[in-house]
């Protein structure tokens, strides 16, 4: 997925940031490759927003170094602002400006901007171009703020909870836009607490808790590493020699639970089991496959859920 092998776009090294007595970021280090979608996942107050605010130059780190496309976000703001697009969690615009007017103003800030109409179209805002900001729904305001982050055709886009408050369809549209944007070579840092979003979009995900990265891997890698892999449960149509399955490279362990067989493994586990059993005249009935999710990984690593309240996340 990562386009350019190992051209580093962003380096964060031993970042620290304290507000008063509160250590928002304890010690965070990571690198983001050019063209990568890098996710930062964690509960509220974990230090995700502070980290990206340091990356965009909005906050001055107490310790550590940051390099974005070779620039220091603090001392080299002028060089970075034209090539870094930012979506902040809490940005608003004047109530009495129209969507089209805000987009038109922001495109004028950049040397080689995207077409505001096309961007509005991609985010489902075309019909709102003539509407006052005040009249937009929360989701529409959110989409406008994503549009403004991308309007300068940035080399790096930093998106802080870009789909919070969006309905499922709008979320899908936004995901598609982000994938297309990355396809054009933009490096993207995505702060989120939607597991599904991280799994769908991110090449790699950093799990952040209490100001530290507790794990960093691909979404699949994280999930499998933490939970031991995928689980498949089935009822065999007749008894079989479990050595058949144990010999498969995908299989790690086999366990009998009454009439059920529970297999833990990785890769194309379900296919491997069905095929091997079929070759030996055994059918696997009532097959249930459970992929380990990022949510499982998060709970295992931090001992708590990302959402205290369960939000509807169907998409």
């Amino acid at each position, binding site marked *: 997925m990562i386009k350019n092998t190992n051209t580093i776009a962003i380096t964060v090294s031993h970042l620290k940031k304290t507000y008063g007595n509160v250590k928002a970021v304890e010690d965070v280090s990571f690198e983001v490759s050019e063209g990568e979608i890098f996710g930062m996942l964690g509960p509220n107050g974990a230090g995700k927003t502070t980290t990206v605010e340091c990356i965009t130059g909005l906050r001055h780190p107490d310790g550590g170094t940051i390099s974005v496309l070779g620039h220091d976000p603090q001392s080299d703001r002028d060089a970075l602002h*034209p090539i870094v697009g930012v979506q902040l969690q809490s940005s608003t615009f004047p109530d009495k400006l129209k969507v089209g007017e805000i987009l038109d103003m922001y495109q004028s800030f950049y040397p080689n901007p995207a077409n505001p109409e096309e961007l509005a179209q991609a985010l489902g805002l075309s019909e709102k171009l003539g509407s006052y900001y005040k009249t937009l729904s929360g989701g529409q305001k959110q989409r406008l703020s994503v549009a403004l982050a991308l309007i300068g055709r940035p080399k790096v886009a930093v998106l802080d909870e870009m789909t919070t408050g969006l309905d499922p369809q709008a979320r899908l549209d936004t995901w598609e836009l982000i994938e297309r944007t990355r396809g054009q070579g933009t490096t993207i840092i995505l702060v989120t607490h939607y597991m599904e979003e991280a799994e769908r979009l991110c090449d790699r995900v950093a799990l952040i808790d209490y100001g530290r990265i507790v794990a960093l891997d691909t979404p699949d890698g994280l999930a499998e590493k933490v939970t031991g892999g995928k689980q498949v449960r089935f009822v065999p149509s007749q008894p079989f020699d479990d050595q058949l399955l144990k010999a498969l490279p995908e299989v790690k362990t086999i366990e009998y639970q009454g009439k059920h067989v529970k297999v833990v493994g990785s890769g194309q586990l379900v296919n491997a089991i069905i095929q091997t059993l079929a070759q030996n005249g055994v059918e696997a009935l009532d097959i249930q496959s459970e992929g380990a999710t990022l949510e499982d990984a998060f709970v295992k690593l931090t001992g708590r859920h990302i959402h205290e309240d369960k939000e509807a996340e169907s998409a």
Partner: protein
Amino acid sequence: MNNTRIKTPRAAFGKLLLNESRLAWRIPISIGMGLGLPLLLLVIFSILPGTRQAQSIFGGVSYFALTFPILLALTILTVSIEVMPRSLIKYRETGILRRLSVTPVPPGWLLAAQIVINLEIAVAGLIILTAAGVTAFGLEPPKNLLGFLLAYLLTVTSLFAVGLCIAAFVRSDAVANGIGAILFFALLFFGGLWIPRPLMPPVLINISNWTPLGASVDALQRAMQGLFPSLPSLLVLMVYTVVFGYLAVRYFKWE
């Protein structure tokens, strides 16, 4: 990617200014209160019986001529103390300045655009009120034009500096609203809207001389009668400009 710094297109400031103008037009407090109210007062003062006759207690000028400089100052006061600081504080409160600070455009440009728009309204007020006064209500045009323009300019700079200082120190729009209202009426009082300066008792006139509106009305009044504004009044306006301007620049925060 490499170190090429990309210059912000100059068109960007034009777009900022355009949107700020749209806002001024769509939220018509500056135009309604800054232009409409003094124009209304101008009409009322001119048609009340006797206001256009020269009075010896006013030093030989009419009540109408005496209050005209206050009406001019009313426009400046509205945009500088009421409108501009509240816009800027709201922009800071709601994160508009913060959002702007991560674009290639310096947030100072928004401040500059605000100053330009409100300056335009002040100048429009000067032109409309003077033209209306002279053509329709028999006001004598300022006899010392240079002194008049200088006094007007310093009124603008001093009150804008005070307004920007409010924007620098006050965090919330609600507080700015309160401070603005108190200042608004206090300054108008010492400018002589309710008790004309020639009728003020010595204590009041002494305080009035040290307020921006008192100094402004004095300077404008003299220029209208053909004298050059008195140096103390011009100095008071200059001191307000420099001191409050310095504090505003020094302590203004974007977030």
